[in-house]
C-alpha cells in the first residue's frame, strides 16, 4: 500500500446559486481502490464527480491527483490521469465502436491530429481487454446497453488514465449486464486501476467496492469500509428507507427491504431494529 494517497479531495464546496450544493467534502483515495459514492437523488454526487473531473470549478477547496492540484493541470493532462465513464447514453450519430474508443486517444494528440497506427493498436487492445473486439465495426447506437458501457470503459482504457470516474455506470443495464460490468470493474481494479463510481444500488457497493462514501444534502455523511458503513442505520438516514443489511457469510452482505425480510412488525419504529445480525442462511431470510 502506498503511503501517499492517489487522490486528495480537500474541503470541496460548490453552489450553483447562493445555496451550497456541496459543503466541506474531504476524503482521500488510494491507488487500486474501488470507491462507491452513495446518496439520494440531488445529494450532490454528480456535482462532486464533475468537480473531480475538472468540469466544474469548486467554490472552495482543492483536489489533488498524485499531489498535483487539478486546477493547475491542463484539461489534456488531467484527461491522461482520469477518465470519465458517463451514464448510459445514446449518441446521435452511429459511430463505430472503434471510432468511439479512438476518441480516448485525443488527450495524447497534438492540436491538429491524425490517429496513428499506434492509436489503432491501443484501441484494439482496449477492446480486447474487455472481450468486445468482435464489436469493433458495429455501430455504437445498435449494440446493447451493456456493450455500450463496456465500449466507454474501453475508451477510458485507451485514454491511458489509471483512474476511472463513473457516473451510475450500471443504471439502465439489465441484470446480466450489470453483473458483467461489475466483473470488469473488479478485474481492472486488480490490475491497479482506481474506480470512483456513484450508484443507486448499495448492493453493488457491498459486492465489489472497498469503500463507500455517503453524501447527504451536499455533506459527507459517512466514509469507510463498505461492511462498516453500509448499515441499516446509515441507509435509513441516507435514503429514508427501511432496509436490513444481512450477513450471508463471513464476507458477503445483502440489503433486503424490511417489508420483505420479515421485520415488518418493526416497520414503524423510528430506527430499524435489525442491525447486523448473526450470519443468516438464505432459507432463514425467506422464513423471516
Amino acid at each position, binding site marked *: 500500500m502506498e503511503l501517499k494517497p492517489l487522490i486528495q479531495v480537500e474541503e470541496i464546496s460548490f453552489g450553483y446559486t447562493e445555496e451550497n450544493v456541496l459543503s466541506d467534502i474531504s476524503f482521500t483515495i488510494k491507488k487500486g481502490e474501488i470507491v462507491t459514492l452513495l446518496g439520494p437523488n440531488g445529494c450532490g454526487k454528480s456535482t462532486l464527480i*464533475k468537480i473531480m473531473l475538472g468540469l466544474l470549478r469548486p467554490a472552495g477547496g482543492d483536489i489533488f491527483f498524485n499531489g498535483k492540484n487539478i486546477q493547475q493541470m491542463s*484539461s489534456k493532462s488531467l484527461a491522461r490521469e482520469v477518465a470519465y465513464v*458517463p451514464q448510459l447514453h445514446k*449518441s*446521435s*450519430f452511429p*459511430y463505430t465502436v472503434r471510432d*468511439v474508443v479512438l476518441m480516448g486517444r*485525443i488527450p495524447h494528440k497534438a492540436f491538429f491530429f491524425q*490517429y496513428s497506427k499506434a492509436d489503432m493498436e491501443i484501441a484494439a487492445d482496449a477492446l480486447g481487454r474487455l472481450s468486445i473486439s468482435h464489436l469493433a465495426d458495429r455501430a455504437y447506437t445498435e449494440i446493447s446497453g451493456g456493450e455500450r458501457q463496456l465500449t466507454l470503459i474501453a475508451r477510458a482504457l485507451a485514454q491511458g488514465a489509471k483512474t476511472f470516474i463513473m457516473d451510475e455506470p450500471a443504471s439502465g443495464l439489465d441484470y446480466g449486464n450489470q453483473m458483467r460490468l461489475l466483473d470488469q470493474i473488479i478485474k481492472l481494479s486488480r490490475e491497479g486501476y482506481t474506480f470512483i463510481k456513484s450508484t443507486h444500488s448499495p448492493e453493488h457497493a457491498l459486492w465489489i467496492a472497498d469503500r463507500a462514501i455517503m453524501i447527504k444534502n451536499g455533506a459527507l455523511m459517512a466514509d469507510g469500509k463498505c461492511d462498516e458503513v453500509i448499515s441499516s442505520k446509515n441507509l435509513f438516514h441516507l435514503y429514508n428507507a427501511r432496509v436490513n443489511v444481512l450477513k450471508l457469510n463471513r464476507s458477503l452482505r445483502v440489503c433486503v427491504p424490511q417489508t420483505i425480510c420479515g421485520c415488518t412488525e418493526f416497520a414503524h419504529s423510528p430506527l430499524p431494529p435489525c442491525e447486523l445480525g448473526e450470519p443468516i442462511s438464505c432459507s432463514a431470510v425467506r422464513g423471516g
Partner: protein
Amino acid sequence: MKRNLLFPALIFLLVLTVAFSMTLGRYPLALSDIAGFFLFKIFGAGSMEFERYNLLGSLLLDIRMPRILAAILIGASLAVAGSAFQAMFVNPLVSPSLLGVLAGASFGAALGMVFFKSWVAVQVATFLFGFLAVLVSVGIARMHKGNTLLLLVLGGVISSALFTSLLSVIKYIADPYNQLPAITQWLMGGLSLVDGKILLTAGIPQAASIILVCLFSGYLNALSMGDEEARALGISVEWIRMLLIFLATLMSALTVVLAGMIGWVGLIIPHITRMLVGPNNKVVIPASALIGAIYLIVVDDVSRMLFNVEIPIGITTSLIGIPFFAIILRKAKKGWN
C-alpha cells in the same frame, strides 16, 4: 465503399463533372475542344486556329470557369459548414443558417442594394451582417448561464428572426420598381454575377476555412458526444466550438457574397455524405466538401440549361434537393438516430 478508394473516386467524379459542365452553355462545346484548349494553354501545342482559341479562351476562362469554381467553393462551403454544425450541435437537422448567418447576410445585401451605389459595398455589407448576426447569437448565448448549446440554438433563432424582420423593413422601403426585384432575385441566388476578382477575394478565405475545418474534424466526433464528455477527453470545447463557428460563418457568409441565398445544400449534402461514407466526421467533412461541390456544379448546370432563361439557383437547389431528400430520407436516417 473502401475508404482508400473513396477520395480518389470523388475527386475523379469532380473532375469529370467540371469537364462536362465546361461543355454546357449557349455555345455547346465538345470535350475534345476543351482538352485541346487546355493542352494549348499549358503546353503551347495545338492544331486549332488562333481565332478559335480566343473564342474558347473567353468562353472557358472568363465565363464558365469562374462560375464552376464558384459553384465548387459554395457547394463545398455550405456542405462543410452544415456537416460541422450537425456534429457540433449534436443534431442532424441543423444547417449552416442555424446561427443566423444567412439571414444576416441577406439583410446586409438588401441594405447595400438600397443604400449604397457600388456592388463592392453590397458585398462588404453582406459579409459584415452575416458575421454580425452570428455575433448576436453568440452574444445572447453568452448573456445567460446554462446549457451553452441550447442557448446558442435559441440565440440563433432570435438572431435569424431579427434579421429576417429587418430584411422585411428594407424590402418595404425599397423602390418597388428597381430595388425590390433586384433584392428578391438576389435572395433566390445566382452564379451569373461571379467574376474573377470576387472569386479571388472570397475564394481564398473560403478554401482556407474548408481546409481548417477538415483539420479540426478529428474533434467533431467527440464534440457530438456532448460537452461534458468532450471536455473530459481533454478537449477545450468552448475554444474549438468558437473557432469552428467562426470558420463556418466565414465560409457561409462568403457564399452569400458570391451568389446570394442558396438553401438546402448545407442540410442535404451532409446526410447524403453520411449515407455514403458513414458517420465518422474525419471522413464526412472532406467527403461532404467534394460531394457538395459536385452537387452544386450539377445544379448550376440544370439552372442555366433547363430553360432559355436562367433559373435562380436557390430555387433549383430546393426543387431538386427537397424531393431527393424526401426519397432518400429512409436510407439517410441510417446516418443518425
